[in-house]
C-alpha cells in the first residue's frame, strides 16, 4: 500500500495564498494568479484579475457584479465537483453568503477542506452549511474566542423592531456589509413581519437585485435618496454599508439611531467604539461553539487556522489533542462581519 500524500504537498501557504503544486492553483489568492479557486464573493477572498476562476455559479455572478464582466479571462462554474490535474475537487455549501462554498481537494489518499468563511446558523439568504469530511480542515478563526456565543438572529431583529416602534419619530440606520449581511438582515426583517418598504444605500442595490433574482424574498426595497425629504425616513429602517456612515450620506436622515448588524456587537467596547446605539448580534461566521462543534463533527487529523484569533483556536485544539497550526496567511480581513 502506498503512503498517503503529506498534506503540505497537496496545499501549502505562499504569499499569494494557499497553493496546490499538483494542480498549480491557489485558493482565494490575494493577488492575481493564473488559476484561482474562489470560496465566496467577499472582496478579500474574491479579487479580480485572475486567469481562470473556478467557483460556484453564484460566486462567479457576484464577482461579475462587483468587478464587471471582465473580472477574469475564463470562468468555470463548479456544480458540487470537478477535477483539476487528476485531483478531485468538491464544492460544499458554507452557509456564509449566497454562493459560498467550502472547497475540498482530494488526491485519493489525502483530503483537505478549505472552509473559507462559514456559518452554521440558518440563513434565509443562502444555502445551509454542510459538513465536508476531510483529513485536514482549514478553518477561519474570526470569532475564535470562547466569549463569542452568538444568539439566534430572529430575536435580535425583534429587538430592532421594538426600538422602531418605541421611537417612531426617528429612523433606524442599520450598518450591514453589502454582500450577504444586508440581504440576510432584510430577509430576517421580512420573516419577523416587517412589511413596510426598506430603504437601501445605492451600494446595496445590485447585490439585492441579484438575491431577488436568485429567489430570495426581500420585499419592497427603495433607494434612500435625498429627494424623498427628511420626513420620509421617520419611523423607517434604512440599510447601508458601514463605510457610508462616515460619509455625508448619513447626514440626510432625521436624528438616526445607529444600529450595526455584526458578530462583533457581542462585545460592548466594540459597539461603543463604533458609536453604535443599537447593537444587533447577527454574524455570518461561526461563533466559538459552532467552530469547535464543527471540528468535533469532522474529527480531522489536523486543523489549519487561516485568519482571525488563531492563538485561541490552536490552544483549544491542543487541549483536545488535535494537531493544529496557524497558517499566518496575509491579506484577509480579520474584522469584517
Amino acid at each position, binding site marked *: 500500500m502506498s503512503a498517503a500524500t503529506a498534506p503540505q504537498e497537496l496545499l501549502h501557504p505562499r504569499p499569494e495564498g494557499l497553493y496546490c503544486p499538483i494542480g498549480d492553483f491557489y485558493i482565494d489568492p490575494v493577488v492575481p494568479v493564473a488559476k484561482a479557486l474562489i470560496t465566496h464573493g467577499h472582496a478579500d477572498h474574491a479579487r479580480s484579475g485572475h486567469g481562470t476562476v473556478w467557483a460556484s455559479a453564484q460566486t462567479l455572478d457576484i464577482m461579475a457584479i462587483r468587478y464587471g464582466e471582465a473580472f477574469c479571462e475564463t470562468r468555470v462554474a463548479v456544480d458540487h465537483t470537478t477535477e483539476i490535474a487528476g485531483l478531485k475537487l468538491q464544492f460544499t455549501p458554507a452557509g456564509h453568503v449566497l454562493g459560498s462554498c467550502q472547497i475540498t481537494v482530494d488526491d485519493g489518499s489525502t483530503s483537505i477542506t478549505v472552509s473559507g468563511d462559514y456559518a452554521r446558523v440558518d440563513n434565509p439568504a443562502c444555502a445551509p452549511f454542510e459538513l465536508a469530511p476531510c483529513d485536514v480542515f482549514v478553518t477561519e478563526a474570526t470569532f475564535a*474566542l*470562547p*466569549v*463569542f*456565543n452568538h444568539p439566534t438572529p430572529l430575536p435580535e431583529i425583534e429587538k430592532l423592531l421594538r426600538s422602531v416602534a418605541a421611537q417612531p419619530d426617528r429612523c433606524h*440606520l442599520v450598518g450591514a456589509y453589502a454582500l450577504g449581511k444586508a440581504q440576510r438582515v432584510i430577509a430576517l426583517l421580512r420573516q419577523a413581519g416587517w412589511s413596510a418598504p426598506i430603504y437601501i444605500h445605492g451600494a446595496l442595490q445590485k447585490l439585492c437585485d441579484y438575491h431577488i433574482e436568485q429567489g430570495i424574498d426581500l420585499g419592497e426595497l427603495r433607494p434612500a435618496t435625498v429627494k424623498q425629504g427628511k420626513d420620509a425616513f421617520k419611523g423607517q429602517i434604512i440599510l447601508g454599508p458601514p463605510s457610508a*456612515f*462616515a*460619509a*455625508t*450620506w*448619513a*447626514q440626510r*436622515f*432625521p*436624528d*438616526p439611531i*445607529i444600529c450595526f448588524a455584526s458578530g462583533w456587537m*457581542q*462585545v*460592548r*467596547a466594540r*459597539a*461603543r*467604539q*463604533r*458609536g*453604535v*446605539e*443599537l*447593537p444587533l448580534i447577527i454574524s455570518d461566521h461561526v461563533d466559538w461553539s459552532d467552530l469547535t462543534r464543527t471540528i468535533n463533527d469532522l474529527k480531522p487529523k489536523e486543523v489549519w487556522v487561516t485568519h482571525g*484569533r488563531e*492563538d*485561541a483556536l490552536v*490552544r*483549544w485544539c491542543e*487541549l483536545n489533542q488535535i494537531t493544529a497550526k496557524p497558517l499566518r496567511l496575509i491579506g484577509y480581513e480579520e474584522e469584517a462581519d
Partner: protein
Amino acid sequence: MQPFAELLEKLAFTPARNAKQAHLLHAFLSLPDPERGFALAALTGELSLRNVTPSLLRGLVAEETDPELFRLSYDFVGDLAETVALIWPHTEALQDISLETAVSELSGTAKAQLPALIRHRLSTMTATQRYAYLKLATGGLRVGVSARLARTALAQFGAVDVNEIEELWHGLSPPYLPLFDWLEGGEKPVSLAAAPFRPVMLSTATDLDDLSTMDPADFEAEWKWDGIRIQATNDAGVRKLYTRTGEDISAAFPDVIDCVNFNGTLDGELLIKRGADVAPFGDLQKRLGRKKVGKAMLESHPAALRAYDLLVWNELDLRQQPFDQRRAALRECVAALDTPRIDLSETLPFSTWQDLADLRATPPDRVIEGVMIKRRNSVYSPGRKRGNWFKWKRDPMLVDAVMLYAQRGHGKRSGFYSDFTFGVWHDDQLVPVGKAYFGFSDAELKQLDKFVRTNTINRFGPVRAVKPEMVLEIAFEGLNESSRHKSGIAMRFPRISRIRTDKPAKEAGTLSELKTFLASGD
C-alpha cells in the same frame, strides 16, 4: 434579572441624557415593586454588596475555563464582569431570578458560601443576565447614569419637583416602596433622615445689560469661588456634607466634618485652603470621589468651607427669612464657630453696577470665577428660579488653537464630524490640549465637517487626523494642571467660540502662552 439586564443594555448604548431619562422613566412605569426600587438603588449606588471582589470572580472562572483561553478573551473584551458573563459555560436549566432575590441572597450569604452561590446563579442565566448580575454584585454599573439623572426621571414619573425627592432621599432605603407609592398618588413619606439634605437655591446667569434694569441698592454681591457648592449640616449630632444635588460626600471630607460642631445647616463653597490661600479647583478634584482619604492627603490638601448662607440654626428654620437677616445671623454664627476651616464669604462694596463690573474685572484671587448677586429681601427657595440670585461669571479665557483630530457625533449629528481635538504650538510641534464639541452653529458645523472630509490625512478607527490648518478660537472657563494629559494641562468647559479662517495655523497660540492661564499661577 431580565428586565434590569435589558435596561442596563439600553442605558449603556444610549449617549443622550434625555434618551437615558426616557429609558429610566419607562422602567419605573413598567417594572413592578420591589424590582424597580432595587433597580433604582443599583443605579444610584445605594446597594452595598461589597463582598463580591474581582479576585472572587477570577477564582470562579478559573475553575470553569482554561486560563490561557480566559486570558486571551479578557485581553480582547477588556472588562472582567463582561468576560466572565460571556465565557461562562452554562450547564443547567435557565432560571431567571428577581432583583430582590439576587440582592437578598448576595447580602445575606456568608463570605465563604458566596462563590458557590454565584457559581450556581451564573450557571442558570443567559449571558445578558449574567452581565447584569455581576455588575450588580460588584457594584460598578458604569452606564452613564448619575444619581441625579435617576432622581430627575423619578420626578418626571411622579410629576413632582426633583427637589422634593432630593429632600427625602437620604431618609429612604431600597426598595423605596413609600417613595413609589407617593409618586403614584399615595401619601408623601415623612422625611425620616437624620440630618437630611435641604434642596439648594441656585443662581441664573446675568450680564451688565440685564443688571441695568434693576436697582443695585436691592442687592448684595459676593465673590463666586471656584470650588464646589456644598451644604454642611448637623442635626442633633448627625453631621453630613452634601453636594448641591444631594450626594453625601461626608466620608471624603473628615476634616470639614470635624468642624461641623454646631447645630444647624450652612450653605457654602468647599475649597482647598492652605493657611489663608485658596487652592485651585484642580487641588479639590484630587479629594473628590473618594470613599476614604489618607492622612497624607488630608495634610497636603486641607479642605475648608466658605459660608454663603444659613438655612437652619439651633432648630430654627431661617429659609423663609429675607437674605439680609439670614446674612446677619450667618456672620454671628461663623464668628462664634471660631475655626479657620469655616470662614465667611465677605460681601462686596458697590453702589452702581459699574462698580461691580470693575471689581469683577480685577478679582483679588485667581480662584474667583466671577460674582454672585443676591436680592436682599429674597427668601431661600430651592431650585433655579430667575430673579433673586444671579451669577455673573468672569469672561471666558480664549486661545487660538489648531484642529488636529475629529470624530463623528450622535443623534442629530450622526454623519457629521462634530467632536474636535485641538492643539497649540510647543517647540515647533502642535500638542493636543483639549476637545470641544459645541459652541458652533449648524452652518459652522457644516463648514467644519466639510473641512474634515477634505483634509483628512489619517484614520484611526472612528477618528480622523486632519491637516493642521484650521484655526479655532477656543473659549474655556479655567485651566488646571493634569498629569493625565500629555500637555500637562486640562481645560474646563472648552468650546469653539469662533472659526478663524483668517488666521494661518502658524500664528496659533503656544503652550507657554496658554499656561499663563493656570489657576495656580507660576
